């Protein structure tokens, strides 16, 4: 469904991403991992349209989408969350999600009922009329996800959603994603540091280091890959 082909991006001489290629099959869940600064969010930003790749292509459902504006990418079926959450602070929880739902439901009342459904699914029903600015971080993360889901994406890009969540909260959200993937065939590409979530969700993993893809495979394969271990833990030194 998503094919990233040799994309690169530099910022004033810093090569954030170099010649990265990977695929996400329809209905699959792929984890994108790597140490901090590896270029994961930059990849997301290139897929979502925030940046145009300096080189390479991004293909979604057979069409090239690299260089498209973010709203156009979203309309094509790609939803995303932000690593640092961006709630609409002055709006209520429900209204936040309504903004997302309005992409598909053209009337406000239809959007409100869609939004309410998703709100319940993510466990935010009780906080329906609370201002987004008054939510705790875990709830803000849930809101971020709910909003993106409201646009009814075919592919969902999750950027470190689990960071800051307790293990039980993490498990709850993982369960929601698993269910969406199973029941509605939602394709998911997630950036994660929390291994618990990655191992539980991802069918395949892509590892980035210094902007390059250094490993691909199933979770088990990747976890035993020496190059991956080295990138996270550093080289073994002779004593």
């Amino acid at each position, binding site marked *: 469904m998503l094919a990233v082909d040799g994309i690169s991006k530099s910022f004033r001489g810093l090569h954030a991403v170099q010649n990265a290629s990977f695929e996400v099959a329809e209905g699959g869940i792929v984890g994108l991992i790597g140490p901090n600064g590896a270029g994961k969010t930059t990849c997301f930003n290139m897929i*979502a349209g*925030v940046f145009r790749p300096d080189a390479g292509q991004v293909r979604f459902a057979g069409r090239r989408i690299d260089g498209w*504006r*973010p*709203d156009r990418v*979203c*309309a094509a079926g790609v*939803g*995303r969350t*932000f690593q640092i959450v*961006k*709630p*609409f*602070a*002055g*709006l*209520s929880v429900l*209204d936040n999600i*309504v*903004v*997302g739902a*309005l*992409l598909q439901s*053209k*009337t*406000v009342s239809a*959007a409100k009922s869609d939004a309410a459904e998703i709100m319940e699914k993510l466990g935010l029903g009780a906080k329906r009329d609370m201002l987004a600015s008054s939510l705790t971080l875990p709830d803000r993360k849930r809101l971020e996800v709910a*909003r*993106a889901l*409201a*646009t009814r994406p075919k592919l969902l890009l999750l950027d470190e959603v689990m960071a800051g969540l307790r293990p039980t909260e993490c498990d709850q959200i993982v369960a929601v994603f698993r269910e969406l993937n199973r029941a509605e065939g939602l394709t998911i590409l997630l950036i994660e540091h929390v291994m618990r979530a990655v191992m539980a969700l991802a069918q395949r993993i892509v590892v980035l280091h210094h902007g390059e893809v250094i490993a691909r495979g199933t979770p088990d394969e990747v976890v035993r890959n020496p190059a991956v271990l080295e990138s996270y833990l550093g080289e073994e030194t002779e004593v």
Partner: protein
Amino acid sequence: MIARLLEGVPRRGLVLLAALLALLLVFPTFASGYLLSVGFLILYFAYVGQAWNVMMGFAGQLSLGHSLYVGLGAYAAAALYVHFGVSPWIGLGASIAISVLAGAVIGFLAFRFGVAGVYFAILTIAFAEFARIGFDHFTWVQGSSGFFLPVANYTENDLWNLRGSPTMFYYLMLGMTAGAFVLCHALLRSRMGYYWLAIRESPEAAQALGVNVFRYKMIAVVISAAMTSLAGVVFAFYYNNLFPEQIFHISRSIELILGPIIGGIGTLVGPLVGAFLLTGLAEGMRELMLQLGIDVPGVKQVFYGFCLLLVVVFLPHGVWPPLARVLGLERKG
């Protein structure tokens, strides 16, 4: 449709609004002359503040050059009337068209080239100043010497040509203000309204949800410009004279934003409350000073300045939110 508009509005709020409307409707029966002109002014600033609010409160763009649209609207309709005898009800089409064009140019330049925040404000000032100086040299409308509309005696009201008594203008302005209020309420409730609020809070998040930020910002700017130009039309036919130095001046721009800022940006009722408070208090103070025999130009403006200062420092969201709480009308917008 009316039911949908009223949905979610607290009963108490509706009652208060209805009472206010009733009061405003009968006002001219016991007020005349000076008081009536104050009433007109209050409604004028409430209307024009609401129009500005669309750009600022809804789309988050601070315009300090809104006098541009007032002036363009005024001159367009006035010129068509004086030179060709065209009724202002038809002439306003030209007013809207020209203001919309100006707004679209400013919006396009600003949004395409990423001019935001303070820079956007300065850009709007530059355009208004440009118009001020430009119109000073615009001989077809008499430039800096002033453009005058023929003043007739108010024997009867000619609504079609907007020639008539202050009472006629009062009701005209009341209609426009009420209309603007309803329009903005409807807009805020609509899909576009949600998108505007989203853009105001976080343009990147909005984009990631499929909102074409550029398009909606442009729409806000254009609607705001169009609404403001209508105020210009009324201005021209009420005062019957137009001077570029005055109508395009930056103090006009600042004057018209005082209401919504003091009342509360982004709220529907804010501009109304602000206009009532500000103009009411200012004129009241002026009366007081006249009684005391003080007639110094500039005192009113100093008063405005202090009001603005106090509100900005102590009530950053305007007077309306705490007032709404006191009245038991806690709701958004």
